[in-house]
Structures are given as C-alpha cells and as structure tokens.
C-alpha cells in the first residue's frame, strides 16, 4: 500500500510544511512569527490540494488565504500591543480545549477516513483523473439549479450581510 515514490515524497514534504507550520503557530511566542508560520501551513495545504489534482482549490487557497486573509491577520496583529513577547496565558482551560480537539480529530478519522480507506480497501487503483472534476465542472456546479446554486447564493448573501454589518459598525456616528 505504501511505497516510496515521487508522489509520497511530495506528500511528505507538504505534510511536514502543514503540520510544522501549525506547530509553529502554536508554539511561537512572537505573534508575527505565528502569522508567518500560519502562511507556511496554508501553503502546505495548497500543495496537498495539488497532489489531489485540485489545482483550482490550490490556487484559491494561496490567493484567498495567503494573499488576503493572512495579510489581514498580520495587519490586525500589528495593531495589538506587545506582539513580540507573549507571556500571558490567555486560555486557562488549554488542556480541556486540547482534549476536545483531540476527540474531534479521532471522530473525524473514524467517521470520514475509515469508511473510505479502511474496510472497503484503498481506492488507489482508480486513476485520479477519473475521480476529480475539472474547473469547468466546478463552475457549472455552482450555477446549476440541480446542484449547488442555492448554497452558493446563500453564502454570497451571508458575505454581503457581513460586509454591510462591518461598514455599519465601523462607521462614525455622523451628527449631520
């Protein structure tokens, strides 16, 4: 099942980037470094998307998460005080959170990954190109009445509402 080839090596590299970046986010005492480690982690995830033959998702991952959201996070971090030496313990139930997250991860593995790769056997024999859709399929799926047009529109409505809400909150109280 597991063999050493270019694909598994690439997978290893991107996994190390993702997990190492994640660990860096948690362990770094410098908030800016945390944000930069987050970018490394997100970059690893986009590499994993490419390995899964989903180049569109990979590009969107870089464009949206690294190009926009990570930059916003860095902006926000720069506006906080004492961002370089975090000594305060902000979460006193850290162990409880860790326990809950660990349980959720186990649940994810058991409920999602086990049914696919466990008892039913690996699907490695099917070529990837037969399983994945093209960008065109994705585009059609988002506007097709039988597929995801309703979730798509609801999500856009939600984002618009969030944007308007942000403007309303950020606006000065105009006396005029």
């Amino acid at each position, binding site marked *: 099942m597991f063999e050493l080839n270019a694909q598994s090596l690439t997978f290893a590299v991107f996994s190390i980037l993702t997990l190492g970046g994640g660990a860096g986010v948690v362990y770094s005492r410098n908030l*800016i*470094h945390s944000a*930069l480690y987050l*970018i490394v982690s997100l970059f690893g995830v986009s590499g994993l998307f490419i390995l899964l033959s989903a*180049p*569109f998702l990979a*590009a*969107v991952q*870089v*464009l949206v998460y*690294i*190009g*926009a959201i*990570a*930059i916003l996070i*860095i*902006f926000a971090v*720069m506006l906080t005080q004492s961002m370089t030496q975090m000594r305060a313990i902000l979460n006193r139930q850290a162990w409880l959170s860790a326990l809950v997250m660990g349980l959720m991860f186990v649940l994810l593995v058991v409920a999602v990954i086990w049914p696919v790769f466990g008892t039913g056997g690996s699907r490695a024999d099917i070529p990837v190109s037969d399983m994945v859709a*093209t*960008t065109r399929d994705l585009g059609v799926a988002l506007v097709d009445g039988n597929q995801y047009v309703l979730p798509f529109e609801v999500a856009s409505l939600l984002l618009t509402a969030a944007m308007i809400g942000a403007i309303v909150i950020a606006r000065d109280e105009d006396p005029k």
Partner: protein
Amino acid sequence: MDCINNLSGCLTSGGLNPALSQFISILLGVVMVTLFPLIIVIFLIWVERKIAARIQDRLGPNRVGPFGLLQSVADAVKLITKEDITPIGADRVVYNIAPILSVVSVLLIWAVIPFTPLHIGVDLEIGVLYFLAVASLATLGIMMAGWSSNNKYALLGAFRSVAQLVSYEVPLVMSLLVPIMLAGTMGMQDIVNAQRGMWFIVSAPISAFLFFIASQAETGRGPFDLLEAESELVAGFNIEYSGMKFGLFFAGEFVHVLTNALLLATLFAGGWVGPFVDQVPLLGIVYLSVKSAVFYLASLLLRNTVPRVRIDQLMNFNWKFLVPVSIANLVVMAFLLKLVQTFGLSPAPDRANDFIANIPQAVILLAGNIALGFVILTYVRNHGRRERLAMETSQSAGQERERIRHMGAVGD
C-alpha cells in the same frame, strides 16, 4: 529546428533514455525561464534610465560601454560588493527571506506565460488564477520586509504599499475576468489560441485599459509610486536593505513591470499570434517581444510624465472609480457576449481562427465598450465640474473671510 520544438523527443531519438531526456528538457526550460528575466532586467534598467533621461531632457547613462549599455552591469557589481548590513533590531530570518520572496513571486509568473505555440513552462488549466495567486505573494514579501526592518519608515511604507496592492487587486481580477469569459478558459495557451482570429484588445479595450492601470499600481509605478515616496518615507519598505538584498527588491520591481507588459500582450494582444507562427514556432517569441515592448514603453511613459498622487486620491480613484467601472464593464461584456452568442453572431467553432468571422462579435463588443466609455467619461466630466465649482466657491468664501479679517486687523 526539430530539436528546438521538441527537445525531449529529439534526445530520445538520439539514443537517450526517455525519462532522462524528459528530465533534461524540463530542467533546461526551468533554468531558462528563471534566468532570462534576471538577465534581461540588466538591460531593462538601461532602457528605463535612458527613456527617463530623454523625457527629462538629459542624456542618461552614456559612459560605461557603447551607449552606456554596461552601466547596469557596473551597478550590479557595485551592489554585490557592498557591505551586507542587517540592523541590530531586525528580525533576521524574516528580514532575509523578504527580498527573496518578492523576486520569486514575480519569477513564478513566468512559468505560465506562453512564449510560442510549443514553449510554455506549464500550461495549467488555471493559468490566470495561478498568476493572481502567485502575484499576491509579493504583498507578503513587502509586509515582511517592512516589519522585520524595525524601522518606522519601513513599516509605514509597507502599510501603504499593502493597502495599495490589496486594493488594486480588485479591478485587476475584474478586468481579467473578461478575457477569461471571451476565451471560455483560464489556461494561458488556450487564451492565446482564442485570439488567433481577433485580439481581445479590440473587443475589450476597457478591460485592457483597466488591467494596464491596475498592474501599474501593483508594481508601484507611475503615478502610484507613493510607497517609495522619497520625500515622505525616505525610501519606503526597503529603507534598511543594502547591497544585493536591495538589488533583489529593485530587480523584482523591474521584472514585474516587464512581466505585466508580457501578460498584457498575452491576454489582450494575442501573445505569440502572428503570421507564419505555425510554420516557425520560434517567431512567436519575436511577436510576443514586440507586443510587450509596446506596452512596456507605454508604462514607462506614464511613469515619467505624471505626478505622484496622494494616498487619499489613490484610494478614492480605486474604490470610487476603477472598481465600479470594472464591475460595470464585466456586466456589460457578459450581457453582450451572451446576446451575441444567442443570436449566432459569434464565430462558428470551425471558423474561430478566421478574422472575417470574428468581426460581428468584435464590432458589437467594441460598440458596447465605446458606449460604456462614453457614459463613464460624461459622468467623470460632470463630477469634475461639480467639484471644481465647489472648490471655487469655498475658495472665494475663504478669500472673503481673509479680507474681512485683514481689514479688522488694520482697523485695530
């Protein structure tokens, strides 16, 4: 000739292992695509300095080599031999990664630019999206440079440039949607192929114009160079960098300008499309170079002839003018394109490369563009007139107040 068009096949027929010859051809391609921009930038700096000098009625570099051609080589040698200084308070790792990131983000774009019908780094299905994703990494490099330098001017410059780059990405993306729509694909090679009959700059001039302006802002050039406003910020985000690290930022910016010209030529002016390009694919490089040279010179002219804008003007121009115009342009183009397709005026698939067959669609889209441009210009003119009137009224009121105050002072 065959060896240039299909190197790995040529090597294999020469008796080499197929996998090895494939590897050699890919390696050569990667090395060439990454080295070429870094070498050409030496001459681009010369071109830019010469043109800037001529516009300002100077001679420009003319001492080193014929016509001063080797001036940039001398400058590069000087940069390399300079002391490499890292400020004491700097964040070393981040400080050293930042210039690399800002050059790499530009060089990575070259991977998807088609040079000839046969020569392209990778013909990704998502070429245009890849370009946008990679280009957004440049913002990160600037942010890292500004923060890690531990200098308030660097940080201020970085804030400015990030605000500018993130804002101008919106009209950039919106204007790129139009060629994607016209070609029906995001692959760069397919977009060029779709322009064999008619260049997109004919059917979508407003999009090309928007892309030109937005990319000018993305490079921090022309009237939008306030991220390195010398009089306010000393030098901007790269103030603490010296030697070749500064040189990397510098080279990255120059390569970015050329890259934008290349993209403009590829996405709107037909890229390598030209006569006899199917018989002799290498001609494509010549056509692409000529087309991008035109856009490159236009960018230089703009840079050297218009004054720098203020930050509020920059933001107003983007959010209150470019973004609405790009959205309106996108809606109008989508509507007209659908209309053209519904009435069967778009060229049949088998005649897509024919110039004559493309004329009806191009004319309708061009008419839509001209109408939209007329509406925009009328609105801008009225808006400008209103603002001028308001300014004159407030100015004369101010003069009146000043006069009364002055008289009062004399009366005392």
